């Protein structure tokens, strides 16, 4: 079973839910936690894993052999991302724009282009207690998160209960993180911003045809419109976490709910039971 945790709006509690769920289930399940928010990964702050392996994530970018190149311009013509430009008798490459599709090297009539690795990030794996952990980190200044996310996703062990923490938003990095999951938890807060972004996240999840349910965090602030929306759309609210300065205090120190307030372990196990039931239906 693969459960992804997404939100639309940032800062609603994805990390709190993903890490607390993982820790609450680790005694009875073989849990793998994958942090796919590679731009700003935070799960490690809460899980404090022992990292045992670190691997660079590289995108294959063109390397032009000027001796073979005839400057015909084919590579620049086929590149959809303007990552190559042929100027007079030289080929300029812009690796930060390259998606690594491989079209230029394959289509070069002179066989003058090979592919060289260009590092865009790193994937680290390790353990924390019974938990298997993996996350990715996009290098500072790099634009493209999806190649790093794909590498974190490649760690997925289908024999385990996999929990995936996604980045905020509704565009390509989130799609990359959540696609292929059996269930998606959408964490929101009952404010107009939370609701607006929840509706966008629900549209995205429906487009991907993944069943979803809501965790309502900071319940008590805002208005009742989020509950009304969920009822109207037939989206179950699987768990409610109240607005509580004690929780905010724990979070600020990097402490999960399952550790800081052990009573929540039961609530997260119940959450999992509801997810299992909903995913089956």
């Amino acid at each position, binding site marked *: 079973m693969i459960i992804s945790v997404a*939100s*639309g*709006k*940032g*800062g*609603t509690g994805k*990390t709190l839910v993903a890490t607390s769920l993982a820790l609450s289930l680790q005694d009875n399940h073989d849990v793998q936690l994958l942090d796919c928010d590679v*731009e*700003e990964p*935070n799960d490690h*702050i809460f899980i404090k894993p022992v990292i045992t392996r670190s691997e660079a994530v590289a995108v294959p970018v063109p390397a032009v052999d000027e001796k073979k190149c005839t400057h015909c311009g084919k590579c620049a013509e*086929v590149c*959809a*991302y303007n990552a190559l430009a042929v100027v007079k008798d030289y080929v300029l490459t812009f690796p930060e724009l390259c*998606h*690594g*599709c*491989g*079209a230029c090297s*394959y*289509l070069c009539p002179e066989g003058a282009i090979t592919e060289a690795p260009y590092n865009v990030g790193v994937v680290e794996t390790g353990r924390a207690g019974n938990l298997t952990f993996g996350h990715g980190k*996009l290098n*500072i*200044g*790099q*634009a*493209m*998160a999806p190649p790093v996310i794909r590498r974190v996703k490649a760690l997925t062990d289908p024999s385990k209960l996999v929990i995936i923490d996604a*980045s*905020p*938003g*509704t*565009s*390509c*990095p989130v*799609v990359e993180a959540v*696609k292929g999951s059996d269930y998606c938890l959408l964490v929101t807060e009952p*404010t*107009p*911003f939370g609701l*607006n*972004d929840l509706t*966008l996240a629900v*549209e*995205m999840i429906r*487009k*991907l045809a993944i069943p979803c349910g809501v965790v309502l965090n900071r319940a008590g*602030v*805002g*208005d009742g419109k989020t509950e009304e929306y969920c009822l109207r759309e037939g989206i179950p609210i699987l768990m409610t976490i109240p607005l509580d*300065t004690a929780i*905010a*205090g724990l*979070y*600020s*120190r*990097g402490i999960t709910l399952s550790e800081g307030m052990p009573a929540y372990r039961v609530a997260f196990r119940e959450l999992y039971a509801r997810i299992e039931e909903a995913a089956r239906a």
Partner: protein
Amino acid sequence: MREIVVLSGKGGTGKTTIVGSLAALAESKVLADCDVDAADLHLLLAPKIKEEHDFRSGRAAVIDADKCTQCGLCQEVCRFDAIHDYVADPVACEGCGFCAQVCPEGAITMQERLAGRWFISETKYGPLVHARLGIAEENSGKLVALVRRQAREMAERDGYDYIISDGPPGIGCPVISSLSGAHLALLVTEPTLSGRHDLERVLGVCRHFGVTAAVAINKYDINEANTAAIEDYCRRNDVAVVARIPFDNVVTEALVAGQPVVEYDDGAVTGEIKKLWDIITRLAAG
């Protein structure tokens, strides 16, 4: 004309709340919502849409089943796992066009996609350029660049003093697109370990692109030890801390009322945001 972009690294730290208030405080400005895949600024500004345009960007492979001989070459060359059973998946397709180039039957065309919409609106605080990226679409960076270009053209044409843009969370493509070439990045953080970790990364991006940064610590009193640590970090890295905004439910109340907090209330939060605006106008002038 000076351009100020509000970023945070971590989501949900209060970017839009602050931009909404700056909208009310700044006299002569164009507002831009650069968080195109979860835009919220319009909820505070009640825009009246004046212009609406399609955002066409990127392409997606479409396979003509009548011409396809199922040779499988397209599936073999695609590195994005976007073609299964001789059908291209528009969500997975990255628009590289490799498949269309190699198809021996010419059965694949790359079709331009409608990737979103963008708007020029009027608000009681001034003009707003905003956009809506299509659900699960790519190219958010290009849409952000378009929003900024429109805001800049308008500011230059009509002689506005500032562009104030609400940026996306993270450090990737849409953030870089919001940031590069701006005069000042205001980074909104919160005194949590996550907030601090993410602030350091987005500060790195500002340095990488040579944009001066200033930091506002929101909800500074939820963990004063972390606030002190962030201030210390900023001091050591020569980054100005321009505000310490207290935690107050009035921020959410204002949001529910659909108003910028500086218009809703005149307490400590409002006082701190006014001070912040005063300081960053001077920093942006630098």
